[in-house]
């Protein structure tokens, strides 16, 4: 059923007011806003991202971008176009990096290293091989954290970014650098039997 004009206006006013309150640090208003935005953003993303497995990831990226850009909203301007611009940017970013990421994942798979996005079995309790453990231990702390959060704890990139307190982009960069270092180190390890 289509939303009436009055309904849309009331919703717009409510979102404006909550966003204004969030800018002053009102956590309750912010949480209410994000909860109410969730289905709206999801519908927006689903109309543009056809890969079902990526939709929730893009949705979370929208939430994180909204959080980072919340100071760019001005209360005298309409809220929904601002929100849609952020969502559109996240969808565009998704499309742009998707191909690149897929090719990177393929090259990692070719070399026998775990793919970056499809998470390993979380908390299986299985010990790592000594070579992998040594390679992981040798990573810079931030890259090690990113690899652990995504691969070992099985978090999504957005969740891992929130946990690490960095942007999704930064988390992806750290994880990717970590994977590359791992690949280089494991590739150079004779006991792995590669190269």
């Amino acid at each position: 059923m289509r939303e009436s004009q009055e309904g849309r206006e009331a919703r717009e006013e409510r979102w404006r007011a909550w966003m204004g309150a969030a800018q002053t640090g009102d956590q309750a208003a912010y949480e209410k806003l994000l909860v109410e935005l969730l289905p709206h953003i999801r519908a927006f993303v689903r109309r543009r991202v056809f890969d079902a497995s990526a939709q929730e990831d893009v949705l979370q990226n929208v939430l994180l971008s909204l959080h980072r850009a919340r100071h760019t909203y001005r209360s005298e301007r309409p809220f929904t176009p601002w929100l849609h611009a952020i969502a559109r940017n996240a969808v565009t970013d998704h499309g742009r990096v998707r191909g690149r990421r897929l090719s990177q994942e393929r090259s990692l798979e070719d070399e026998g290293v775990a793919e970056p996005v499809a998470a390993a079995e979380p908390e299986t309790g299985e010990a790592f091989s000594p070579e992998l453990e040594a390679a992981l231990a040798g990573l810079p702390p931030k890259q090690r954290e990113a690899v652990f959060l995504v691969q070992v704890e099985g978090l999504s990139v957005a969740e891992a970014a929130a946990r690490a307190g960095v942007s999704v982009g930064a988390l992806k960069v750290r994880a990717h650098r970590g994977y590359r270092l791992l690949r280089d180190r494991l590739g150079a390890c004779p006991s792995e039997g590669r190269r």
Partner: protein
Amino acid sequence: MSEPSNESLIESLARDLQPVRPIPRLRTVALAVLGTFVAMLAVYGLFGGVVPLGVSGVPWSDPVFLVVLAGLATTAAGGILAALAGAVPGREGEARLGRRILGVGLLLAAGGVLWGVGRADALEPALPIASSLRCGGRAAALGLVPALVVCVFLARAFERRPLLGAACAALGALGLGAVAAHASCSGGGPLHLMIGHWLTPFGAALVLALPLSLLVRGRAG
């Protein structure tokens, strides 16, 4: 990914919420950029520099001069609009408009310069490098601080493409400088116009774009 992970993300975002100061209106920032430019002109004039209206012999009635002036002013307006609006979600339409105006301005100024070249009975006997670099350098010097002001705003706002934003900022701000340089230049033939009032300031703007984009990236964290 499941619904609870969205909920936990929302919870964590709300929990970590800090108050923020909304960015100023674009109009206010644009006025601040203009104010900075006027202040730069005043300082430059105080230290003996040549400023618009402070020099005689400027060919105000020459159509080539006026077309180039209009082109430079249009470039400045478009560049600054494109840079400022491009850093704010929801203002993409204005940013696109700004980029179009910027392009039109560059072409208009280039067209004016070429008109001057085509119309001249004779070009300068030698390339007027020294005087051209003086005018171009003046434009760059006058536009640098306004460009920095724009870039500080870009860093504070939400610039997703720092290099593009910085390039627009530099072209716009150095366009302002070029307007001042052009409007205070009483001499020089068509080649001087081309090199000193068009190529040098906008070349310098493109060179400046990279360090300015690093500033935007760095300050934005």
